[in-house]
């Protein structure tokens, strides 16, 4: 009962952030203008609304994937970039920018493909490492794959044309939803929703991965298979949103912890709560990114800059909220 009230509360907060964000911006819009002015409704429905929805999907995917991966890897410090997925996606995007600088579709497809490829390589590498347990091996392989792909990104930067490709590349790498429209939303939506829906369906069963593997086994679930399933769906969602928004840190790490602070440990509550909190937080960060200065602050910078203090503040506050 108490958790139902809390869910209603975070939903109300999400709705508030959504409405506020819709009417905030360099071109200020109020209700009257919305009804009378064509420009106002154009801005609202074709510029702000798709961008806010993209931010919501981005936040949902990163936060739900973070929550699920922390359980799957039995490590509360895990975030979606851990398995090399983010750096793989960044490399895919960089490669596409080098050859097709003006084609967002190619950039997004290449980014998703390389994100998934990075996971695949990490998984295969992990079986050849002769050190530590299964989980540690996978994490080590992920770190190695990340390093290789981020080296690749560095090489592409040196090859890029400094007037045209390099700025595009740098801006993409900083991450953000600047100029994200209905099309971008449509590109990332199918894969992102597929991943999110699967994690939502598995929300209770994910708990079994936080137990000892032999206990999970004795509860009728093969921990290796369940872990692989969770990782695949989490990565699918992350790769899809990363292809549009670039590498966005922190949210996948902090939102699940904030959710645990409010709802306890049970993933059947944490995964849905992370979806809502992730959406709300990302919309808020993106609103800051596009309104704080005359220009546009890259979203990745805002999430790190605001995310870290928010994280410390929430975790250092004693007592349950």
């Amino acid at each position: 009962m108490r958790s139902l009230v809390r869910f209603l509360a975070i939903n109300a907060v999400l709705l508030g952030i959504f409405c506020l964000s819709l009417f905030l911006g360099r071109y200020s819009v109020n209700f009257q203008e919305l009804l009378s002015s064509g420009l106002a409704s154009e801005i609202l429905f074709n510029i702000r609304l798709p961008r806010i929805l993209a931010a919501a999907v981005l936040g949902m995917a990163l936060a739900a994937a973070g929550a699920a991966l922390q359980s799957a890897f039995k490590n509360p410090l895990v975030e979606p970039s851990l398995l090399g997925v983010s750096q793989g996606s960044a490399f895919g995007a960089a490669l596409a920018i080098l050859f097709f600088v003006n084609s967002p579709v190619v950039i997004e497809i290449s980014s998703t493909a390389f994100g998934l490829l990075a996971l695949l390589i990490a998984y295969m590498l992990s079986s050849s490492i002769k050190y530590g347990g299964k989980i540690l091996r996978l994490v080590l392989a992920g770190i190695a794959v990340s390093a290789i792909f981020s080296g690749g990104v560095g090489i592409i930067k040196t090859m890029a044309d400094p007037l045209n490709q390099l700025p595009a590349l740098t801006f993409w790498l900083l991450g953000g939803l600047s100029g994200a429209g209905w099309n971008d939303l449509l590109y990332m939506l199918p894969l992102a929703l597929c991943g999110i829906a699967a994690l939502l369906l598995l929300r209770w069963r994910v708990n079994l991965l936080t137990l000892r593997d032999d206990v999970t086994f004795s509860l009728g679930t093969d921990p290796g298979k369940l872990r692989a399933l969770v990782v695949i769906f989490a990565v699918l969602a992350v790769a899809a949103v990363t292809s549009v928004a670039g590498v966005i840190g922190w949210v996948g790490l902090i939102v699940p912890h904030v959710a645990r602070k409010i709802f306890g440990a049970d993933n059947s509550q944490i995964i849905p709560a992370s979806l809502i909190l992730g959406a709300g937080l990302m919309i808020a960060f993106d609103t800051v990114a596009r309104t704080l200065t005359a220009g546009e602050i890259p979203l990745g910078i805002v999430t790190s800059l605001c995310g870290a203090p928010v994280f410390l503040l929430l975790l250092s506050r004693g007592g349950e909220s």
Partner: protein
Amino acid sequence: MTKMELRGVRFRYHGQRTDVLKGISSVFPEGKVTALLGPNASGKSTLFKILLKVLEPSTGSVHVNGKEIRQLSLAELSRIVAWVPQEEEPLFPYTVHEYLMLGRAPHLGFFDVPTGEDEKIINRVVTGLGIAKLSHRETMSLSGGEKRLVFIARALVQQPEVLVLDEPTVHLDLRNRALVLAAIRRAADGGKTVIFSTHDVNEASLVADEVKILNNGRMIKQGDPGKVLTEEVLKGIYGMKLVFRRVDGRPIAELAPDSFRG
């Protein structure tokens, strides 16, 4: 009621030269408590892993109610056999109630979330074990004895027919030992087949209906505790001087005062 049976089970870990289990045939009788005794490295843990199908025997087979467990799915087996490890530290601070709910996993579909029905089963189990008041505590904040009872509760919530426990009383004080042993005894009196490992000879003779002694991969003695646990057998296994006596016919063994002075 369910009996578990090993038929000619041998097991060798990959890349090793000798068998850990060297042809074990043994019956764990239904509705009884069986204590598995044996020195460290005698093969007890491996034997348990084989009962739980975490490991497959190299040769031989395991049967539950006459059916080979190889032919049962993991989910089917988990509705029959439940496992209680010595220690279990979940990653996140679940409440006891949330933790016990995980014991319902074998009975739920892959995408299912527990319901009020599962809730009722948990309530019955915690009331039976006298730990209903712990429900809203965090598992990590429990004392050693409380934790052990909660582990047993999680296995009982699974509604298994066979309960396998790894040294369930280790590190506990006398009072908590008695509570855990009583829970084990009650489970068997309620019709469950209970198998537990222990290093404590006295504990085995106190609660077990059947004692099995595993040594160096072989089941060297099995049967009634009063007959199996004799002075000669125990001295043979541990190679130590022991003080041996019988209280109400039950064998009691302790280290002799001069057994550790070289």
